[in-house]
C-alpha cells in the first residue's frame, strides 16, 4: 500500500483526536508517520480474508456483573480533581461560541 500521509491528513487527525497541532508539529508528524506507516502497512500482506480477527488474546464470553449497587464515589471524590466546579458539578467554558 502506498502511504498517503499528508499534512492535511495529519491536521484532520489532530481535529479528530482533539489535539491542536502547531504547523511545525504537523510537519514533523507527517514525515515520521510516513516512515512508520510504510513499516506497519505490511500487516496486510498476511491478513488474508480467511484469517479471523482476534480482539481478545484469551477468548471468554458472558462475563457479567450482578445488578447490585457498589463502587459508588462520594460527590467529594467525584469532584476532588476537578479543574473547575460549581454547584456540585464540573464547570467547562462555553461549548459553542456565539451564534454566527
Amino acid at each position, binding site marked *: 500500500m502506498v502511504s498517503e500521509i499528508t499534512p492535511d491528513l495529519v491536521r*484532520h487527525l489532530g*481535529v*479528530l483526536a*482533539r489535539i491542536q497541532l502547531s504547523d511545525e508539529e504537523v510537519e514533523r508528524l507527517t514525515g515520521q508517520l510516513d516512515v512508520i506507516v510504510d513499516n506497519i502497512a505490511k500487516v496486510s500482506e498476511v491478513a488474508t480474508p480467511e484469517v479471523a480477527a482476534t*480482539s*481478545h488474546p484469551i*477468548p*471468554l*464470553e*458472558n*462475563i*457479567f*456483573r*450482578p*445488578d*447490585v*449497587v*457498589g*463502587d*459508588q*464515589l462520594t*460527590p467529594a471524590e*467525584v*469532584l476532588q480533581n476537578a479543574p473547575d466546579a*460549581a*454547584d*456540585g*458539578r*464540573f*464547570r*467547562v*467554558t*462555553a*461549548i*459553542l461560541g*456565539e*451564534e454566527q
Partner: protein
Amino acid sequence: MAKDKLMDFDKALEVYEPVLGFEVHVELNTRTKMFSGAANPAHADNHGADPNTLVAPVDMGLPGSLPTVNAEAVKYSISLGLALGCSIAPSSRFARKNYFYPDLGKNYQISQYDEPIAFEGQVDVELADGTIVTVPIERAHMEEDAGKLTHVGGSTGRIQGAEYSLVDYNRAGVPLVEIVTKPIFGAEHRAPEIAKAYVQTIRDIVISLGISEARMERGNLRCDANVSLRPRGQEKLGTRTETKNVNSMRSVERAVRYEIQRQAAILAAGGTIIQETRHWHEDTGTTSPGRPKSDADDYRYFPEPNLLPVAPAPALIEELRAALPEPPAARRRRLKADWGFTDLEFQDVVNGGLLAEVEATVAAGAAPAAARKWWTGEITRVSNAQGREAPDLVTPADVAALQSLVDAGSLNDKLARQVLEGVIAGEGTPQQVVDARGLAVVSDDGALIAAIDEALASQPDVLAKIRDGKVQAAGAVIGAVMKAMKGQADAARVRELVLERAAAD
C-alpha cells in the same frame, strides 16, 4: 434565524412520498448502570438525586477504571428484542464509538456496532381507526447514556451563547437499548400518526415488560425521527434529516408533519435537503438545524477490548421468551373485553396513549369506567393545557386513590378535580392534598341541616312549591346550600335532606 417556509401538508403529499425511520432510546430501570455498580437514576428509587451522587469511577472515565456488564440489563435487552420480534444474536459484542463531548466521561460511548444483540424484527402498530401498520425493525442494541449538561448564562439554558456549562455524570452510564427501524414506506398522509402510534407502541411494550419507567418527560424514552421525501415515482431515497430527542408522543407527530412540510417547500423551490440533525422546539412547533454531518463524524468504531462477547444460551432466550407479556394487539383485545368499553371509549384510551395508565389504575382498584374517565377526561385536559404528557402528570396509583375517595363519598366530582390539580402540582397524594387543602365534603348532617333551614327561611315560597309536588323547586335551595358550604357538600345528600325537611314540617 429565518422562519422556515412550509408547504401545505396535503399538497406536499401529492408531490412527494415521505419515508420514515425512527431511533428510539429506552432507558432501562435496572438497579445499577450498564457498565458500573453506581445506582441507576432511571430506576424509580433514584429520581431526583443530587448531581454527581450516582457516579462510579468508570462513569466519569477515571484513569484506570474498567467497565463491567450488568447481567440484568442484558436480560432486559433480550426480552425487549424478543418483544420486538427480533432474532437474538448467538454472539454480540460491544464497541467503542469515539467522539469528544464534555458529557461523555471517557470521550467514547460503549455501544454495539456491527454485532447488535437483537436484529430483524417487526412491530404491529395500531392506528386510531384500528388499522394495523407493521413497522420493520432493523436492530436493537445495548449502550450507555451520557451525562447531563446545563448551560448557564447568555440566552438562558441555550447552548448558543452560554457563558459556561455544568456537567453532571449521574446519567452517564444509564443502560440504554436503542431500537432502530428500517425505512418505513407507504406511510403517506398518515406518516405523523404512524410516528406517534409507533412510539406509543414501544412505550406500551417496555411498560408491559417492566423494564423502563418509560416517562418521556424524564427522558426515559427518547425518539429521533428520520424523515425524507422523494418525488412520486422516484426509486432513490431522498436526503433525510434526523430530528433529535422529541420528548413527547404528540411532539413526534408534530415534528414529522413539520419536517414533511418544510422539506417539501425546499424541494419544490428547487433546493436540496442537507443531511443534518435537527432539534425540535416544543414552544414554537418548529425544528432548527443542529450540526451538519461532516467528516468529523468519524466515530472510529472498534471492538471494546475491555468487554467480552455476549453469547446468551438458547435456554435463557427461551426462558425469557416464555415470560414475555402478550403482544400489544392481543392485549388490547383482552382489555377491551375485560373492561366492557364501547369501540369509541376504547379508541379514546388507545389514541390518548393511555392504555397502560388505565390498566394500572384498574389494577390499583378503580372501576374501569372511572379510570377511563379520569385519564381521557380531566387528566388529558390538563395535559393539553400544560403541554405535558398525561402519564407524566400523575401516577395510576394516585388516580385510583382519588377515585376511592370519590367512591367513599368523601369527595364529589368538583372537589376531586381540585384534589387532582393539587396532586399534579406536586402537593402529594390525594389524601395529603385533601388534608392540606381541607377539601373533604361535609358529611355532618347537623351542619347541612342548619344551612338548609337558613336557605328555606330565606325562600319561604320554595317550601310550599315542594309540598305542592314541584320537587324541582328544591334546586334553588340545594344551590344555596352548596354555595354556603363552598361546594364541600355531597349534593345528593343535601337534596335528600331538603326533601326530608319539607316532608317533616
